[in-house]
């Protein structure tokens, strides 16, 4: 089928060598297989994230996102903007909605953008990579390239917050979204049911309020374990980072012995599509996803 092209907005954490560079690598491999062409928005900037509110206020955050849109409209006219990071997607989408709803805000934004020689028209759509997979390709298409079904792999799909609320993936519910489980099943793995699918990991407060956040993380990981998961899979870099890298801290704090790998859906697909551990950037995991690695190394 025809090549799909998108303006790509990787976001700060997904850029090379950043905290979720493994996400970026695996997304690239995945898209290669799926014949999706991603062109980075030239000179894109940070979305401001949610936490930006404290100092940034309202308009500056919209202006940041508007700038990315403006650049996309300018250089990649006609293409949807695709973000892989939940926060980037959410921030951008919020901006688009608010500017669409308020002529005042739109005018103010453009007044500010002029300082950078840009203007926002509101043409480009903002999509999350997951939306592209589900809506533009569909589960059937995603199943076709599978050469290595991840049989026997039990996975807890951890959707988290920001790809789920307040916008979410069309047709999914806030309390029990099923798309991630469907993706997991699409690649032949088993999606284990568990009750922390959409629990908040603490988000940015993992840094500022480690104690409180790590209780959240514990609940999530514990439930995944209790329901027999071999690993956790998520569509959100912050979820991935928090739930994976803080397990050590959680163990210290709560005397647990957690050591469950946390990967991205893109890494699953990459492996299922026959990609190597390197293609899937499995070396980028702090907790080694051994089962997935084995599957990847299988010829």
């Amino acid at each position, binding site marked *: 089928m025809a090549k799909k092209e998108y303006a790509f907005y990787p976001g700060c954490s997904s850029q090379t060598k950043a905290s979720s560079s493994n996400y970026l690598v695996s997304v690239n491999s995945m898209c290669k297989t799926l014949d999706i062409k991603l062109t980075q928005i030239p000179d894109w900037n*940070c979305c401001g994230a949610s936490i930006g509110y404290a100092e940034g*206020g309202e308009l500056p955050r919209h202006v940041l996102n508007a700038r990315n849109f403006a650049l996309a409209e300018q250089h990649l006219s006609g293409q949807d903007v695709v973000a892989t990071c939940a926060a980037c997607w959410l921030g951008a989408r919020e901006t688009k909605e608010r500017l669409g709803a308020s002529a005042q805000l739109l005018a103010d934004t453009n007044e500010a953008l002029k300082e950078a*020689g840009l203007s926002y028209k509101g043409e480009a759509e903002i999509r999350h990579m997951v939306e592209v997979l589900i809506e533009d390709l569909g589960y059937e298409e995603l199943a076709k390239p599978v050469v290595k079904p991840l049989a026997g792999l039990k996975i807890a799909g951890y959707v988290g*917050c920001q790809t789920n*609320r307040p916008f979410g993936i069309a047709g999914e519910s806030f309390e029990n979204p099923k798309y991630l489980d469907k993706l997991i099943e699409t690649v032949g793995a088993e999606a284990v049911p568990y009750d922390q699918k959409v629990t908040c990991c603490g988000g940015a407060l993992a840094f500022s309020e480690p104690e409180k956040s790590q209780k959240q993380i514990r609940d999530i990981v514990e439930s995944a374990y209790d329901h027999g998961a071999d690993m956790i899979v998520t569509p959100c870099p912050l979820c991935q980072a928090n739930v994976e*890298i803080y397990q050590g*801290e959680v163990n210290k704090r709560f005397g647990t012995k957690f050591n469950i790998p946390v990967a991205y859906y893109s890494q699953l697909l990459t492996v299922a599509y026959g990609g190597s551990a390197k293609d899937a950037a499995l070396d980028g995991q702090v907790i080694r996803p051994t089962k997935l690695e084995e599957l990847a190394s299988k010829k």
Partner: protein
Amino acid sequence: MSEANTQAVEKYRNNFLKEVEERVEEGEWVKMCMQCGVCSGSCPFGPHWAHPPQEIFMMIRAGKRDEVLTSDSMWMCTSCYNCIVRCPRKLPITHIMHGLANYAHRLGLAPKGQPTREFGKMFWNNLVATGRVNELKLSLSLYFKDGFSQGIKNAMAMKDVGLGMLKAKRLNPFELFSPHGCKDRKGIHAMLKKAREIEDRRKHLTS
């Protein structure tokens, strides 16, 4: 008490609700709350809120300005958006909480050293510098926010995390010297400066 705060007190006298409606992001929604409490019950950090959102809305209507603006409750928001999707009156609660926190911060009323306030500030300044977040600098500045020695402690405490990230090539020491960043930093700075000006104008804020 900042000059901005005195000016605000002058301007709005005892009408805190009006102050919030004019100056706080999405503040005009506060009046629509019907006190069902679903937001308060939906927050993952709920137990840590001295005053949960619905109570804060009531306090605003009751004119309890200082209690609200000096509270650290709003800073408990993890931006999980549970409250927003459940609110039967469709109040954008997450944004109102952000707005209140930001406003309290701007007026200098927010609790000193409130960790999320501090982190939020660093995060913003960090991203503004180059247009993109520099995670290493960010985490270091976080550790060292309370001075050097405390910073070392913090860093040591978190060293496992750091090392793990290093091993996984997800924390790049060279970021310190040749960081990521946008080319048009000048434009970005100008644009953000302008945005701030406009926002202050709109909200009759001068500081």
